[in-house]
């Protein structure tokens, strides 16, 4: 694959990469703690994954195989453009298969297929501070982290229980990492939270706008906050995936016409494809594949 001329390998200059690499190492050493770094301008707007891209650019090497997903899908705009960006600037191989990838940059999902040792999962993070909507001042949230003063978050979850009878937070669900730091898992559905704990792969988080990097090393305990009488629960569906029939993956609801018809399909397109290849079928097996495209 040809690489772009006039740019350094993987776009970022070496000095910036070194700075980001040092931040990543500190992040790994202090799991869940947000390390400030000198975020660089990337050739796409903030909010499009510039934090994740800077982490990927600093980690990626010629031998890597990159997969990029956006809400679980390999074929959405954000995923396609970031994958092409690194194919172009680093000349690396790309893949859509979770099992084959050495690096997976993700927006808002963790693949359904369990990740393995030596894979690295890189999250794009919009707002890295879990306490930000409770306490807008950075000086204060820093103190709260320093003192492990996390009661306010329990109160927020309790307000859910008081109002709705259950914890209504369904994504961006706060976790405690290694029993010390409260961490924002990025806006993944809480369905994915349990996958973060004791994962054999390394998890890195990059927030470009807020200029923070944090990490969860392999085999690290990640616990979702809850109460004794309202334990943490993940979403479940009465439906199964219309394409592959999976009843255990995260499903997207897709509106199929103007009359309110809808179907549920796996949000993880590679997982769905893998199951179809294995011969699993759903109720809509005869539908054209163009309807696989998920919304959002």
């Amino acid at each position, binding site marked *: 694959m040809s690489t772009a001329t006039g740019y350094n390998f993987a776009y970022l200059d*070496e000095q910036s990469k070194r700075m980001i690499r*040092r931040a990543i190492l500190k992040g*790994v050493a202090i799991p869940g*703690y947000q390390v400030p770094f000198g975020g660089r301008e990337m050739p796409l707007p903030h909010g499009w994954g510039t934090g994740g891209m800077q982490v990927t650019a600093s980690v990626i090497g010629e031998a890597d195989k990159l997969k990029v997903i956006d809400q679980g899908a390999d074929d959405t705009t954000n995923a396609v453009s970031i994958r092409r960006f690194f194919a172009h600037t680093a000349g690396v191989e790309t893949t859509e298969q979770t099992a084959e990838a050495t690096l997976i940059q993700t927006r808002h999902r963790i693949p359904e297929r369990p990740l393995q040792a030596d894979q690295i999962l890189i999250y794009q993070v919009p707002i890295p501070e879990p306490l930000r909507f409770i306490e807008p001042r950075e000086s204060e949230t820093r103190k709260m982290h320093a003192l492990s003063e996390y009661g306010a978050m329990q109160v927020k979850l309790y307000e859910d229980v008081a109002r709705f009878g259950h914890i209504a937070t369904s994504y961006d669900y706060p976790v405690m990492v*290694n029993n010390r730091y409260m961490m924002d898992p990025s806006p993944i559905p809480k369905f994915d939270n349990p996958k973060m704990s*004791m994962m054999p792969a390394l998890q890195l988080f990059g927030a470009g706008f807020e200029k923070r990097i944090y990490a969860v090393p392999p085999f690290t305990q990640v616990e979702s906050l809850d109460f004794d009488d309202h334990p943490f629960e993940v979403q479940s569906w009465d439906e199964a995936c219309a394409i592959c029939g999976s009843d255990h993956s995260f499903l997207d609801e897709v509106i199929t016409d103007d009359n309110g018809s809808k179907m549920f399909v796996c949000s993880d397109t590679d997982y769905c494809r893998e199951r179809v290849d294995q011969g699993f079928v759903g109720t809509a097996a005869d539908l054209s594949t163009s309807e696989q495209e998920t919304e959002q």
Partner: protein
Amino acid sequence: MAVSSHELIAGFADPVQASQQVFRAALKVMSEPGTLVEIDYAETAPKGLDLSTWQLALSLLDPNTRVWLSPTLAANDAVISNLRFHCQCPLVDNPFDADFVIAWHSELPLLAELNWGTAEYPDRSTTLIVQVPALSDEPDWTLSGPGIEHTRSLYVAGLSEPFRSDLTRSRQRFPLGIDTFWCCDNRMAALPRTTQIEPFKKAEEAC
């Protein structure tokens, strides 16, 4: 002290790729504490530096990182000249001011003399790079914590007893702490501040 040009050696043949590979090795050992790796992207190191130390320096150090060298290294013209020339890192006189400390195992400063970071910014702490005479997975320390599924064993030779116990006890001050790289020839391991260290216990007597 000026750079002595006759002491200079070549850096990485391919600085971009080699820096990335060495960083990935550093990332692996730091995220999987006690894991040993060998790095071979440079053929020679300045006299006085282990190959792995030299490659770490080329990969991670630059004008933004203050470095403290232990006395023998600080008096070594080859080491200083090459660090100045290749990394352009400022050398400081006090280990507390350093982002990276590079030290011989026999010349280690007290852990208390290093910068442990602050409660609000625990990342602003010294990273310690120690050159040791031997490094292996023989059972000496039993390690546990993030990055380790059950336990892992590591043997770092040449550390004084007080330093070993200081390091073990430093875990109580988490999130403050010192992250360490251990270097021996082309081998490297790391212990971040999260790793709990226990002396290896021989198999319990039958009970």
